[in-house]
């Protein structure tokens, strides 16, 4: 009997035993949702990609900032045996906040069901924060710009 004949013989003679009725009932009762894990994997992959790009950008930005802030290398730096004590960090507390609208421009019209037409207005603010040091011997001015789209009821003539 050669390999093919023996294979055919085994296949013909032995058939895997049927599962018990209990097992079949148990399996049928599980009712798994097809594609559920697939969606989870895809979502996870998307999140990984979504997180990876900003992380890479942040790493590059940090590297650039560090490189720009780093002092010029000193040709012959003195070898000091004693460690230089680190300067204590100053703590600043915000004492004043000013928010000024510096720019506004009309944007798109949108229509929501059951509402009058709305127009989106692009508004740009300038936020100015004044902070003083914990000992009130230094003042720090911070400034940032932010923008938002504000819906307003459109005027209909």
């Amino acid at each position, binding site marked *: *009997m050669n*390999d093919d004949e*023996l*294979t055919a*013989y*085994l*296949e*013909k*003679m*032995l*058939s*895997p*035993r*049927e*599962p018990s009725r209990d*097992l*079949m009932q*148990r*399996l*049928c009762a*599980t*009712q*798994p*949702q*097809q*594609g*559920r*894990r*697939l969606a989870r*994997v895809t979502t996870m992959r998307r999140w990984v990609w979504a997180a990876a790009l900003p992380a890479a950008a942040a790493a590059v930005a940090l590297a650039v900032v560090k490189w720009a802030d780093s002092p010029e290398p000193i040709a012959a730096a003195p070898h000091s045996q004693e460690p230089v004590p680190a300067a204590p960090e100053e703590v600043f507390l915000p004492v004043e906040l000013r928010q000024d609208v510096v720019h506004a421009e009309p944007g798109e019209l949108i229509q929501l069901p059951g509402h009058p037409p709305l127009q989106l207005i692009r508004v740009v603010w300038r936020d100015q924060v004044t902070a003083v040091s914990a000992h009130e011997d230094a003042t720090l001015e911070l400034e940032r710009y932010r923008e938002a789209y504000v819906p307003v009821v459109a005027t209909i003539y």
Partner: protein
Amino acid sequence: MRPNDFKRVSSLTDSSARAWERWLAGHVRSFLLFARERTACPQDAEDVLQEALVEAWERTPPGREPDEALVFATIRRRAIDLYRSRSRRQVREQRAADESEHAEWFTCTLESEETRQQLEQAVRSLPSPLRETITLKIWGGLTFAQVAEVMSCPLNTAASRYRQALHTLRVRLKHVTPS
């Protein structure tokens, strides 16, 4: 959500349930045989089988059936994971208990019960890698490439294990098989 939407969702669920049952009916015997082959007792085989089938089904896009090689690989991985969590002594005791229960793996289609016992005994007494290979190839219906994928071994190894298993069976079944 409108009432019509509810109706539609429930009809989709019914169709998915039917697909699951149809797939089970067509494949569960060979998957169960492999799970029995990989585990020490029938209860473990059933637990591993259930977990693996559910996992494979949930990993498959809707409207398609899971890849058979992937299901066998999932059963194999689940069985390995199960026994990693137990001590060797526990596994040995379970295997001994299983031997005493002598849960049957096969039914004999034509010949006598005595022939079935001899054939089954010959298959069961093969070393594990040879037994796995022959189970996947003959009763799982996989190609050598798929067997190699399931067992994480090179293609040539899968083929040589298969030939070795057949050779061993031929010697052991010398008096059973027709000449």
